[in-house]
């Protein structure tokens, strides 16, 4: 036992957490005592003796858990053990519950954790739908309802979509570029462990007096600055989730820039790598803004500052500018990695190079650049500077262009291919194209100011959100999970269950979210627990569809768990793909490669006889192959 306490791990972590909490609590009490204030401040926006421990306890836990051991030794000038790989690889299931620095283990930790959050967010969604099934109060009161959709959105966005992409990329990206691991493995592990912490903080707000945070996922001031204690949990949770994503993004950027295998010049990188490069640029540049906005709200709440107190010279609308300067790029943070996955899947399963590869990569960069210049399209009716509206409308609508390039290029990839539909991942990719176009086009409509004036803050927005986030991001996530499941687990999932899951999800998504367009246009506002009875029938229909959609997800979970344990062995390369991660064993060896592979061509050279993407270590390496002549289509008409 004494031994267990001294070693990094759960015991020491628990002790660290208690000590951290005690330290934070003591600090607050001591400072208040020194300044002659009452020891406990329990005004609804106050509670410093809860908020400060909420920040210090996780750090205590991380210290105890072993997140900083190496850095402490290093900082103190003690000898560090550079080739100690004891925190690498997973040999038993317990290894997944350690501070593990192996990118493959971290990838799986991420995916499993975030899928749990998906279920939690989904259950919250089903509670929302239960309340909305009929007009009038069904299961919860109005203020509880506000807490439900706020936590639903936050769990889905910060704990599911954004991190699961980080998880998938964590697993495959280093393999794809021929790197033995991420650039900063310990930082990588730290990023992961910040995530469950953020989750506990967000969900912990349900226990706070006054209930969970309920100012929407957007947390507009001054509603949020005056809200009960739960809102501070939101402010703090965003810091943990944000720090986690910034650290991961930084890690991806450095890995992609400095650790590519020899021969892998930028134009030989798989598009997933490009997609994560773009996403990471967005995260590093934009996420600090949401951190800043939530710091300001927190300061207003517990330090009595006046950033958004209009009576004290604060500016109410500035919150929205700062928030959306992050949160618009955030929607592409939630979409671009998905674009990368789709490129991989479609190219592999139609046995063809990605059409217009370079333009595809440039379109990603174009989206990154444009997405920093459109934030105010969320504020067309917010009473902001009216001169800013038209410029933002134009930039907003222009984003349709690079996105369209991607859609059309995927279609172009299908043409003249050999399209295999046996894999669920391909099905989801094709369904993604159709569904996302609908969501994207409703986005363009929202970008047109006169239309937005009418439909802003109605169910039309809710329809847009779910078409792009569920029909967009979530479909790509499913595609990615099905695609790399054999690589991650070494086993094959059940395609039949996959198909049931696929059809149920597609039909459920369309049934649940299409009618929202109409009821929104017709006059049903969003974020209401009760509504005019004319919308009763449609809402019932939506609720039933949503439950269907939820039920189908159980099949997915079942398929994943059972196949992981009992599925047939998958082999190294079931999809006959060219990129490097498929050239190693499934699951890959602990250190990925014995020797770094050598890249000799593009990643998607299907159909060119003898074309190779990479030559693996240990293979009798022929000399660098000549770049295959890019075949061109004779002009189409």
């Amino acid at each position, binding site marked *: 036992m004494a031994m267990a306490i001294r070693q990094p791990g759960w015991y020491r972590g628990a002790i660290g957490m208690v000590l951290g909490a005690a330290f934070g609590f003591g600090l607050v009490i001591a400072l208040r005592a020194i300044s002659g204030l009452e020891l406990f401040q329990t005004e609804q926006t106050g509670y410093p003796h809860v908020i400060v421990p909420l920040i210090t306890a996780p750090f205590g836990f991380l210290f105890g858990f072993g997140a900083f051991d190496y850095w402490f030794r*290093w*900082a*103190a*000038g003690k000898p560090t053990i550079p*080739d100690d*790989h004891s925190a690498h690889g997973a040999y038993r299931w317990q290894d997944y519950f350690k501070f593990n620095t192996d990118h493959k283990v971290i990838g799986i930790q991420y995916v499993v954790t975030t899928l749990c959050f998906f279920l939690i967010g989904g259950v919250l969604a089903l509670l929302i739908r239960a309340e909305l099934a009929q007009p009038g109060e069904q299961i919860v009161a109005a203020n509880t309802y506000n807490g439900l959709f706020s936590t639903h959105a936050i769990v889905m966005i910060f704990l599911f979509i954004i991190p699961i992409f980080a998880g998938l990329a964590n697993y495959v990206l280093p393999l794809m570029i*021929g*790197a*033995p*691991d991420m650039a900063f493995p310990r930082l990588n592990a730290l990023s992961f462990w910040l995530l469950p912490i953020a989750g506990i903080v967000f969900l912990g707000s349900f226990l706070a007096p006054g209930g969970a945070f309920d100012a929407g996922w957007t947390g507009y001031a001054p509603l949020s600055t005056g809200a009960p204690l739960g809102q501070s949990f939101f402010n703090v949770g965003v810091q943990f989730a944000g720090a986690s994503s910034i650290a991961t993004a*930084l*890690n991806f*950027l*450095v890995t992609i*820039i*400095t*650790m*590519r*295998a*020899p*021969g*892998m010049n930028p134009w030989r990188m798989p598009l997933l790598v490009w997609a994560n490069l773009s996403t990471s640029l967005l995260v*590093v*540049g934009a*996420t*600090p*803004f949401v*951190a*800043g*906005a939530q710091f*300001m709200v927190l*300061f*207003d709440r517990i*330090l*009595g*500052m*006046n*950033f958004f*107190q*209009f009576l*004290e*010279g*604060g*500016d109410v*609308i*500035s919150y929205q*500018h*700062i928030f959306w*300067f992050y949160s618009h790029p955030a929607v592409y943070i939630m979409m671009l990695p998905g674009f990368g996955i789709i490129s991989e899947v479609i190219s592999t399963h139609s046995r063809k190079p990605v059409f217009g590869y370079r333009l595809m990569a440039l379109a990603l960069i174009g989206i990154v650049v444009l997405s920093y210049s459109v934030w105010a399209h969320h504020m067309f009716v917010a009473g902001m500077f009216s001169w800013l509206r038209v410029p933002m409308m134009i930039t907003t609508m222009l984003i349709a262009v690079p996105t369209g390039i991607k859609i059309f290029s995927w279609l172009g990839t299908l043409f003249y291919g050999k399209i295999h539909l046996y894999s669920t991942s391909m099905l989801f990719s094709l369904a993604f194209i159709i569904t996302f176009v609908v969501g994207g086009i409703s986005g363009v409509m929202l970008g047109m100011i006169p239309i937005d004036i009418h439909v802003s803050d109605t169910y039309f927005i809710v329809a847009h959100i779910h078409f792009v986030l569920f029909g967009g991001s979530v479909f790509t996530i499913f595609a990615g999970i099905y695609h790399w499941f054999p690589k991650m687990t070494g086993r094959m999932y059940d395609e039949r269950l996959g198909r049931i899951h696929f059809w149920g999800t597609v039909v459920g998504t369309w049934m649940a979210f299409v009618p929202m367009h109409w009821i929104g246009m017709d006059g049903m506002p969003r974020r209401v627990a009760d509504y005019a009875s004319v919308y009763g029938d449609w809402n019932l229909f939506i609720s039933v569809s949503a439950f269907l959609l939820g039920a189908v997800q159980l099949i997915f979970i079942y398929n994943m768990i059972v196949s992981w344990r009992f599925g047939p062995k998958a082999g190294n390369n079931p999809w006959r793909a060219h990129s490097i991660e498929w050239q190693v064993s499934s699951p890959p060896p602990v*250190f*990925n*490669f*014995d*020797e*770094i592979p*050598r890249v000799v061509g593009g990643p998607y050279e299907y159909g060119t006889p003898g074309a190779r993407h990479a030559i693996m*270590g*240990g293979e009798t*390496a022929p000399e*660098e192959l000549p770049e295959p002549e890019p075949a061109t289509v004779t002009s189409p008409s």
Partner: protein
Amino acid sequence: MESASIAAGHGHAEEHHGPPEAHQSARIDRTILGILLFILSEVMLFGAFFAAYFFIRAVANDGPWPPVGIELPVMIAGINTAILVSSSFTVHYALEAIKHNNHRGLKLGLTMTWLLGATFLFIQINEYVHIGFTPRDGAFGSIFFSLTGLHGAHVFVGLLLLTFANIRAYRGHFGPDQKDHLGVEVPGIYWHFVDIMWIIVFLAVYII
């Protein structure tokens, strides 16, 4: 030139105890690139607060700035600025010293930098105590304390990093090769950033 790094005939019989060395596909060192990107995101964090500053000063209020009745100790802050700026030179000196394998110079430079930084922080805290208004006093108080406070927090972190560098310097670590003095270079880069950021904060809050 890229394929040159493949060791020819690397036998398989050899036991591997660790991962293969990653191929270095860019000339920049990973840690340096890492800190530069980190600084980029730090700049954006300051950016968020500068955005708030802009709105509070230019959009929400049109009165005098700082508001009547508030007198900022520009003189003291100016001296403090000089202190911090000079510490950028000492940390640069430390780096140059170790590049020429001059350990004495390294220790001197790092110690000086640490002391200058600590002095800055001390004066800053002293200023807070005597300034005569609090973060609760209007939006001006909020933006003043959060911009300077955010910066102060960065000075604190920089000092922490410098402390580590100092410890290691006095233990005789570091050497003239780049990989042997990253522990000086990286905190140094961060420190320059803290410095430049202060000049911007100082100009925005005290001068214009």
